[in-house]
């Protein structure tokens, strides 16, 4: 795969939790939403068809977004209003970090740092350099046991809180 579409190795993530299909991936996103407080940066790794957008659809539903949540691959940024504002980005078509200002990323990150919004990015490669020391949650979706199954892994900087770790290790979230 070309560098712009690189996906990190599963070995650099904890074991993760398995979803059996799009419905459960959506549900995982929905439960993850309950843990969001505003100000989080979520990076979503995984190949084509891994279920990244499906996870974000669940996340948005969990945040009370009523608008239809669709793929941002071509539009680059979709913004939704729920309990928190969600900026849903996709860098699939973006090759260089030099393009980030054109997409409005610095302004979006400022808004996230102020705590009023959540930023969720698919194919986040070009975004990494712009994040600096900003805390982030990194998700990786890999193939599971069956064709529709996916294993969702989570790591973070700093280490994700206990409720996050529990949700992504198959335990019950503390919420």
């Amino acid at each position, binding site marked *: 795969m070309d560098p712009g579409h690189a996906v990190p190795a599963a070995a650099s993530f904890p074991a993760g939790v398995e979803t059996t299909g799009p419905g459960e991936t959506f549900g995982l996103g929905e439960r993850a939403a309950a843990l969001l407080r505003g100000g989080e940066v979520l990076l979503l790794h995984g190949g084509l068809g891994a279920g990244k957008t499906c996870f974000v659809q669940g996340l948005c539903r969990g945040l009370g977004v009523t608008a239809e949540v*669709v793929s941002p691959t071509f539009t680059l940024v979709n913004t939704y209003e729920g309990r928190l504002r969600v900026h849903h980005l996709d860098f699939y078509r973006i090759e260089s970090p030099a*393009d980030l200002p054109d997409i409005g990323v610095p302004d979006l990150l400022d808004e996230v740092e102020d705590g009023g919004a959540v930023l969720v990015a698919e194919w986040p490669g070009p975004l990494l350099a712009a994040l600096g020391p900003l805390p982030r949650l990194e998700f990786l979706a890999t193939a599971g046991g069956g064709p529709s199954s996916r294993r969702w892994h989570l790591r973070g900087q700093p280490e994700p809180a206990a409720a996050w770790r529990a949700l992504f290790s198959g335990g019950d979230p503390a919420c």
Partner: protein
Amino acid sequence: MRVLGIETSCDDTSVALYDTDGGVAANLLSSQVDLHGVFGGVVPELASRAHLVNLLPMVDLLLKREQIGLGDLGGVAVTAGPGLLGALLVGLSTAKAICFAADLPLVGVHHLEGHILANALTADLVLPATVLIVSGGHTEVVHMPEIGVYERLGGTLDDAAGEAFDKTAKLLGLPYPGGPHIDAAAKGGVPGRFRFPRPLAADQRIVFSFSGLKTAVRTVVEELPRPLDDQTIADVCFEAQEAIVDVLCQRLFQAARLKRARAVYLAGGVAANGRLRERVAAEAAKRGLHFVAPERVYCTDNAAMIAYAGSCHLAAGRRDALSLDSFARAPLASWRPSPAS
């Protein structure tokens, strides 16, 4: 009346001139014009910076080629959204400046209205019409009883059709953008070797879902011996294209029946797909509906469609204030009162 059109909502910068007496007089795209010669520098690759560098030289080039001045224009039409705000602002600010300097009426056009009305650049519109807008970022069905009245009937729940084409191509190792490559490869495909899902087929709403196609194609491809031979790629392309085109056709004609349309139209980049045009033409003929496939140059993003849409607004006496704002997202709204039904 001559209307200058400006389009900066997408990757290409485009300027065009539409003449209500003679049709499209010029339609320039930054990807097709040799701009190095015009401003003697390196052409930047992206979005707002590129638009900023490209736009004024392209307007100059157009005026020079057509041997007209700003005073010969009847107005300026510009894409006001949806799109990236930075990119849109370049076009909008330029349009405002030209209107302010030359005392011309300004018209902001919704990008999707441009795509819909692009059909009028190929043949006179037959109305009421139901339109399928299909591109990398959009998959929507819109009903148009008359120009300026738009009713959104539905759209995709996840990926757009153009995205489904591009990502299927990626999974097969075909170059970007994938749509034209799939279209070409599918011509040599043998039907029936693979089968891909038609999601939501039983759903009564005008809805599409293309995200599952990626997983379906990947599952098929992963089980095939590597490297993939050309015939296998052609066979996968054929069936993936059939799966996409099937649901697009089904929803378009379902909507046309619902709205008792006299015509159906295609709009947007995927409207250039050969198989989609063929299938819609055949189905329209069978149902006695009018259909003319739009010229391919007016399917992809272009300023001619914006100039034409602007001429419709101006003919109806509509113009915008110089305080007009660009917008990242907004549904296509009607600007004429709905006809009594």
